[in-house]
């Protein structure tokens, strides 16, 4: 259980790590939108190259980034198979047919697009979480959502709830492990028996965990109170997010990529070579 890292942050220092979290969040949003505009394989290749460059810059091992695909591997394969099987066309000749199953060239192309799109969709955000601490992410979100405070949404409170929750996840994991060990030392058995038996076996873990969570919440509230925490009102920041040159550079690159993708899609300038690409 020690090996579970929440938010999977990979702690090295790199230009990508140092980017402003707001810029990273916006870039990821733009990246996701861009992927939905892609239709030509050149576009996918372009985004893949861009992503590879970002991974290289971030000094996160490529395998670590690719590992996030494990979770969606099934989804990707399933979607691709379905889209191959269910593509049908009145005019085109099937490449291969067996009973009612017909496979068309266009179906395969669509499936490849779908697969690439899903894979790229997962990899981008996972690079974000690998290179940004959960706290930085929350700070970034809070700052980006600040305008919503105008319509009386308690953005600061939501952000602080989120950062406390994120902060406590590792603590809770540790606590769970401790309590599980203590009960295991009293020969509690969590690994055998049917699902009901196993669920029941967790009671000796959950009750102490709840008790200590409430105690911890109480203590934390007292500690915040005694340091004059009164919500967002009049609260200043120690680490103020500031945009640097690298943030503008990154934004420029991201916007350029987005623009190229749009050109590939709509061919505004009527270039013949763009039209010829598949």
């Amino acid at each position: 259980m020690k090996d579970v890292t929440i938010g999977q942050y990979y702690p090295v220092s790199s230009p990508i790590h140092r980017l402003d979290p707001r810029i990273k969040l916006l870039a990821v949003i733009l990246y996701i939108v861009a992927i939905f505009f892609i239709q030509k394989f050149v576009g996918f290749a372009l985004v893949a190259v861009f992503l590879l460059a970002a991974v290289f810059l971030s000094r996160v091992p490529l395998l670590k980034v690719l590992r996030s695909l494990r979770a969606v591997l099934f989804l990707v394969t399933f979607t691709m198979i379905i889209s191959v099987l269910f593509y049908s066309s009145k005019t085109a000749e099937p490449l291969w047919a067996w009973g009612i199953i017909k496979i068309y060239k266009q179906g395969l192309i669509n499936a490849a697009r779908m697969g690439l799109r899903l894979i790229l969709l997962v990899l981008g955000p996972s690079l974000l979480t690998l290179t940004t601490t959960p706290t930085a992410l929350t700070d970034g979100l809070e700052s980006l959502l600040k305008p919503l405070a105008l319509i009386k949404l308690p953005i600061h409170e939501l952000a602080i709830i989120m950062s406390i929750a994120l902060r406590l996840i590792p603590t809770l994991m540790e606590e769970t492990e401790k309590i599980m060990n203590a009960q295991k030392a009293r020969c509690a058995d969590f690994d055998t028996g049917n699902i009901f038996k196993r669920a029941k076996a967790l009671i000796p873990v959950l009750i102490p965990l709840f008790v200590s969570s409430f105690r911890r919440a109480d203590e934390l509230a007292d500690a915040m109170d005694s340091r004059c925490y009164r919500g967002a009102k009049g609260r200043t920041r120690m680490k103020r997010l500031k945009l640097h040159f690298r943030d503008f550079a990154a934004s420029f690159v991201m916007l350029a990529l987005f623009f190229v993708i749009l050109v590939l899609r709509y061919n505004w300038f009527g270039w013949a070579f763009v039209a010829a690409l598949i």
Partner: protein
Amino acid sequence: MPIKITDLNYVYSAGTPFAKHALKNVDLYIEDGEFWGVIGHTGSGKSTLFSHLNALTRIQSGVIQVDEFTMTGNGGKKLKRKNRPDFKALRARVGMVFQYPEYQLFAESVEEDVAFGAKNIGIKGDELAERVENAIKMVGLDYEEVRSRSPFDLSGGQKRRVALAGVLAMHPKVLVLDEPTAGLDPRGKKEILDLITEIKAALCPTIIMISHNMDEVARYCDKIAVMADGELKLTATPKELFTQTGLLESLHIEMPQVTALACALASRGLDVSGAALTEDELVEEILRAKGVTA
């Protein structure tokens, strides 16, 4: 029923940037009936080492023998059932009392909580009731008064005793205690330590106590193991360890207060030995130095 640890290694989060060598080639032999104290700074590997003893931590490499149970490593992977000892029997043999054990209480009544471990090893009926009653009495609680109370209503010290009773009801032959006196006042500390001495005499002959308090270790233990940076630096008797000032300094260990006082007195010219480990010994030394016969 000795405990033999051979060439034990442990690495946390191996293969990641967080990798930490928590245990390095640890060899340790613990004879039956000994009271061991284990000292070392936070993160020196004490807790990791002893959580191996009842298979709570999987061995990565090395061998541990506890009585007839032999455990070997499989690179930290789960061993097949036929290749590993019966963990329940092992855990009944080696009782483990963690830091702040009162946080493990969960049942509706003290009685039920104390019975949990014993029930898990298959004790039933009259024997179970008897074990629970004896365990609660042994830790110095009033059985009739606390048996049906909720463990959450008890005071901190009482809770800790209930948690201890829960381990004792399994009738362990080796008891590992991780800082049993942490967070208690001086009187509570002494009570728990005296209790442990009683338990040692009556029920569980081998005690291993992890502690940060040199006075406790000097006073109660037969042998001391010093851990630092995942290595077992040395094993010695309290006398051997605490009389070697140079050694203590190189290991960054403080002297017990009594010994420090004895040394201070000796350096001011009073003819006392700097080897006094307990108050009684020091008093005797001072009386002797002053020529008073008790």
